[in-house]
């Protein structure tokens, strides 16, 4: 019989290292970052153009331009394009990012050669048909109308709008009329200005073979084009933080968001704040989750998070709670924040958080796709890969006093917006 009273010995000494990508350059200068490993013969190729919100001449034009790439080219109708991509078991996705436009092809390595020409045609010679744009607008208008009945969505939209301002690239929200204002010529303009070879990076992960790179060079490495000079002016940030109550009639729960603008990953306090956020609300064992869900049962989920873009970042706490426990929840949120500002975190709690973060990082680096996601984020935010080692160093060595000081510096109530959306 094992002694069940005693925990098996825990090792804290796992090797965490970021596999550096191979960097190659296509004939026209487009850099290709490649990570080839794994057990499956699958590939993911992701083209990234710096053509997101900071580059738009009109709201939503970046997102619409990308979404419309799938709706037909100058030579191939949308139906034929869909038919061919599906036939080879490929999937094309256009995930939404604030700074960049990303176009991704997932496929079996053996079908890469059949799919790549279509993928290139789709990206460089889109048709942008008026009729397709009108259905895109209509579908998204209806989606927004549905989204605006969800109080978690409303709360998220509002807090980012308050943090950055309603006309700022990182702060603006979409409404049915924002979609309605999109014109075909806007998409053509945006495509011409920013879908250029000097504005592109390619990320290749999975298991490639000897044909993969020559194919990329053949279809993406020949044409040369120049981007427009991007705008540098951003609408200034607005007012002092305040508490905002919004009503969504008949809500059975209340959505709460508490947060503030912060900084990008290059800021000297980023790594430390990353750990502070973990302790506060970054994982299941965090203080918010332990107190507000596991002790009080006020909610199914509560979290805090830090998100960064190339030129900025923000932090917020989010939860949906029963309508009758809104005030107690807010009280407990501030109690947890103030406790972090007042008392140094115990060695035991710091150790658990550190171990969790290190193990979780190992999972985040498991396999070619995961590794590339991290590498890509660093490259796109213009951060040297060594910064990752610095982050791991901070996770391993940060002390309790530093964490308390960061809480005192960044989590003061007067700096935090509060958005409350309930009945």
């Amino acid at each position, binding site marked *: 019989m094992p002694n069940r009273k005693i925990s098996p010995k825990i090792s804290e000494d796992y090797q965490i290292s970021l596999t550096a990508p191979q960097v190659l350059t296509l004939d026209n200068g487009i850099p290709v970052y490649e990570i080839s490993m794994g057990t499956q013969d699958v590939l993911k190729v992701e083209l990234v153009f710096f053509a997101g919100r900071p580059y738009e001449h009109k709201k939503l034009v970046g997102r619409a331009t990308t979404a419309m790439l799938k709706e037909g080219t100058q030579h191939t109708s949308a139906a034929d394009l869909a038919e061919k991509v599906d036939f080879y*078991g490929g999937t094309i996705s256009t995930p939404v990012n604030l700074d960049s436009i990303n176009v991704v092809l997932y496929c079996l390595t053996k079908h890469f050669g059949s799919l790549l020409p279509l993928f290139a045609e789709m990206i460089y010679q889109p048709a942008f048909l008026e009729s397709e744009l009108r259905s895109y607008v209509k579908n998204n208008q209806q989606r927004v109308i549905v989204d605006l009945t969800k109080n978690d969505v409303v709360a998220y939209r509002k807090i980012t709008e308050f943090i950055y301002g309603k006309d700022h690239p990182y702060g603006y929200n979409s409404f049915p009329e924002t979609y309605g204002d999109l014109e075909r010529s806007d998409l053509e303009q945006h495509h011409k200005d920013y879908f250029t070879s000097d504005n592109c990076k390619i990320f290749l992960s999975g298991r490639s073979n000897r044909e993969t790179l020559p194919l990329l060079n053949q279809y993406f490495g020949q044409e040369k084009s120049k981007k427009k000079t991007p705008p540098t002016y951003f609408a200034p940030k607005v007012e002092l933080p305040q508490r905002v109550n919004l009503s969504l009639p008949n809500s059975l729960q209340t959505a709460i968001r508490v947060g503030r603008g912060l900084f990008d990953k290059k800021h000297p306090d980023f790594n430390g704040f990353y750990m502070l956020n973990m302790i506060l609300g970054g994982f299941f064992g965090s203080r918010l989750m332990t107190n507000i869900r596991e002790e009080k049962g*006020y909610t199914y989920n509560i979290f805090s998070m830090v998100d960064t873009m190339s030129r900025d970042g923000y932090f917020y706490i989010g939860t949906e709670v029963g309508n009758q426990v809104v005030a107690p929840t807010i009280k407990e949120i501030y109690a947890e924040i103030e406790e972090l500002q007042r008392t140094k975190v115990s060695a035991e709690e710091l150790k658990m958080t550190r171990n969790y973060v290190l*193990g979780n990082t190992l999972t985040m680096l498991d396999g070619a796709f995961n590794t590339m996601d991290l590498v890509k984020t660093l490259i796109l935010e213009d951060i040297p890969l060594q910064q990752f080692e610095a982050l791991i160093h901070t996770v391993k060595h940060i002390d309790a006093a530093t964490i308390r000081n960061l809480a005192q510096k960044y989590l003061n109530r007067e700096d935090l917006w509060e958005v409350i959306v309930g009945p």
Partner: protein
Amino acid sequence: MIEFSRFELANGLKVLVHEDRSTPMVAMDVLYNVGSRDELPSKTGFAHLFEHLMFSGSTNIDDFDDIIQNAGGESNAFTNSDITNFYDIVPAENMETVFWLESDRMLSLNFDEKALAVQRKVVVEEFKETCLNQPYGDVWHHLAELAYTVHPYRWPTIGKVPKHVEDATMDDVKDFFYKYYRPNNAILVVAGNTTLAQVEALSQKWFGDIPPGKIPKRQIPTEPKQLNFNQRINEAQVPVDALFLAFHAPGRADEDYYAADILSDILCNGPSSRLYRKLYKEQKLFTSIDAYVTGNIDPGLLIIEGKPATGVTIETAEAAIWQELEAIKAEGISEAELQKHKNKIESTLCFSEANVLNKAINLAFFELLGDAQLINEEVNFYQRLQPSDVDKMARKVLTKNNCSELRYQATMMTR
């Protein structure tokens, strides 16, 4: 191809091991053969509430999460109509810790009254967050009740009403645990950077002395064949109308499952599929449309759902779906169309095997279906399908008398 070994402990616990040296991690999956289909109609939502309690302390361990987090790992679980599934992922060095954790909560829980009180509240908030406070969030409550008359699939896993969860007692908890959470009602899978020898030794050490139980024989009524079209019109506080059609279809345990699954793909999976192309892109009658099978072990449902475009009546939208269904039944599908969907499935399966945790969860589920080796046969089950198999399935399943229809009629004024 997922290679694995298998052995069984004297107490009846089935153990599967998949070695994968390409990952630094080990994933553990513990599947208990109990789901919401095993609940009483008066105590629904219990299997899922119980899943929450599995994290609230066991005989020798007060805090499951503290320990796994200290070991650099993470744990979670899900419950559905058929199973309750727990999974952990840790750096390979700390594999033994999850053996300790999972075996201790299989041995016995600490049955803490306060934990039960808190988790009842947490689950009621989950009920609100996922069902009651979301537009169309109660769709499964309506649809399940409409499509099933006697089978316990007639209530959703979260429970019929929050009250059932609120009324759960400690006696219910204890009873459920000793009835179902026994080694001879579970499947353990260990996948990742480990060896069969290590897993054999640790399984014997930590799980070997847990006594087996007497598992009640499952007595679930078979759902009788539906004879007439069902319809429910639900006037609801939603911003736009929505339409759901549910057809009885073969379950996972049935060899015809694969034909039904690919039929749902042909109807509406991917941008070249039929309903997507014709009704969403060409005729623009819908602003979203989808089709899928529920994938239950007992006979399940093939669902078609969509939201009509502004200005299109729900009747028009629905008639257009039926027209497509009649067309597929009358004309059948071509070799090329079937091949396209087989290719898509091959791709999806290949991608899903790139993740060690996925592999562990899937191995456990296929073992429950009868034999984990089925996981490697799956692609062949699809490849062997002929157009005539799918045509037959379409004619059998896609009929009015086999259909339950749910309409949401929007009463909310927008803008």
